[in-house]
């Protein structure tokens, strides 16, 4: 059967979609596995330790060992928990973390779905992950889990507004919601024509809000080991716990790649000269994402956890006013001759 007859087949669109999804999700899950190793290694070196170094060469098979361990562990359901929601919560956390990847372009037009409202889609779906945390906290019927869920809900609402306003700035300058076109709008002068420069406050606020939205240190009060044991996932074990873990790390990669797409020129090389232009665009995108992921780990190893009221203050009283002010600045700049700086 040649390719043409295969493409005429009734099931071809379904098969093609499944293939595209596999091509994205399988490397993503591998990246998640090795991100956990990278985290332990990077934080190890920052703290002058070696990190995991027993399984495989220099610990390179550690994520595989962890995965096997989690797969074979028993899933314990507390006797007073709401059984259905307790088991549904990890799925509610994991599914949105995978769904957002449908709109991410890995190169010009290289996305599972090239939707023309991609920015809106990723913002809408990324906000859904919190249901997994809230439902987990409630269904566990444990005070620590419940406190973690409450914190996560309040934190998400606070930072999602700042995050949304930061993205409003990007779409004002790019004049489109299509993620591929947002990257193309940053083409031209290499490093200096990317949006991180004219939209610098948005760049910082988006990334910091991303750290807060993924519940990573120093904003990890929803877990807060030292105060509320492990927060929302204190009652979880085995694969149910692993799904929360996968969702958190997939979200980290997502925030990093979206920051690279929106503010760091996506698949464009930093300098429009050989040898930089010889490297394929997707490699540049992955390199930028990897750098931002390193920043995630760097932040975690550097800063102590925020106090809860300070997190709220930063979100509501600092980030939101700053983004609103910068939206006005961008709006004025777009209507005056200053717009040459933005385009």
């Amino acid at each position: 059967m040649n390719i043409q007859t295969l493409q005429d087949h009734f099931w071809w669109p379904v098969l093609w979609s499944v293939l595209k999804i596999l091509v994205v999700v399988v490397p993503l899950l591998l990246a998640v596995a090795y991100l956990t190793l990278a985290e332990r290694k990077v934080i190890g070196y920052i703290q002058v330790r070696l990190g995991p170094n027993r399984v495989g060469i220099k610990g390179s098979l550690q994520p595989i060992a962890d995965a096997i361990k989690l797969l074979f562990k028993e899933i314990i359901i507390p006797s007073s928990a709401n059984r259905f929601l307790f088991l549904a919560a990890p799925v509610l956390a994991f599914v949105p973390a995978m769904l957002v990847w449908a709109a991410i372009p890995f190169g010009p037009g290289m996305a599972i779905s090239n939707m023309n409202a991609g920015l809106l889609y990723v913002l809408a779906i990324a906000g859904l992950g919190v249901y997994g945390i809230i439902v987990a906290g409630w269904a566990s019927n444990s005070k620590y889990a419940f406190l973690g869920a409450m914190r996560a809900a309040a934190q998400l609402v606070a930072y999602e507004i700042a995050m949304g306003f930061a993205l409003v700035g990007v779409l004002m300058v790019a004049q489109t919601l299509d993620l591929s076109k947002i990257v193309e709008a940053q083409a031209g002068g290499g490093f200096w024509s990317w949006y991180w420069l004219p939209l610098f406050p948005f760049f910082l606020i988006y990334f910091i809000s991303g750290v807060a939205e993924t519940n990573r240190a120093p904003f990890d009060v929803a877990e807060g080991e030292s105060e509320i044991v492990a927060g929302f996932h204190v009652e979880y074990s085995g694969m149910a716990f692993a799904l929360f873990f996968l969702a958190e790390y997939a979200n980290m990669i997502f925030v990093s790649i979206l920051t690279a797409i929106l503010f760091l020129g996506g698949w464009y090389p930093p300098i429009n000269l050989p040898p930089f232009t010889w490297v394929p665009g997707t490699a540049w995108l992955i390199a930028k994402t990897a750098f931002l992921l390193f920043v995630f780990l760097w932040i975690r190893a550097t800063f102590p956890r925020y106090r809860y009221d300070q997190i709220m203050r930063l979100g509501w009283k600092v980030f939101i006013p700053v983004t609103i002010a910068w939206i006005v600045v961008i709006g004025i700049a777009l209507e005056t001759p200053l717009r040459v700086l933005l385009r």
Partner: protein
Amino acid sequence: MLNITSILFYAFSIVLLGAATMVVIARNPVYATLYLVLAFFSAAAIFLLLGAEFLGLILILVYVGAVMVLFLFVVMMLDINLARLKEGFLSYLPLGLAIAALGVLELAMVYWTAPMGHIPAPAPFPGNYDNTRALGYVLYTQYLYPFEIAAAILLVAIIAAIALTLRRRSGTKSQRTEEQLRVQAKDRVHLVDLRANKH
């Protein structure tokens, strides 16, 4: 003729109606809230099927992503007495059914008043059609005043809600961040030069 769009439409419609019914009859308020989330989701999917991606995604972003999270937040913390909640159910039921019937009647009118009882299929969109851009264009030109007035009313509502719930008590020992940030070493540490004395 059932094509894939119609199948999806009917699937989402059935889920939407089922979820909306469960919101009313679910015994547990947390379940009711989660059913409402499902109802919003199905409605957003129907918007997407109609090609109104902006409305569909905004519905998810605003209602599912923010409003329902706060609902869930409140519902989980309240100790809701189910018996009292269900007390008025039967007495309000006729009024609710009447309003529902009115809604169905209005939708039916749209169908009946269409020529020959047949609603023409929407014109296919031109290739570079952008739902978001079209909506923004209409909102900020043709409907500018209603839009701005609605925004002003919402702003007033926000300020009123804050003003009604803001209570300042004197004598509380809450921290003032601006004072904490302004503090300097000389405000907190008083160095005393003690000289060793001979006894």
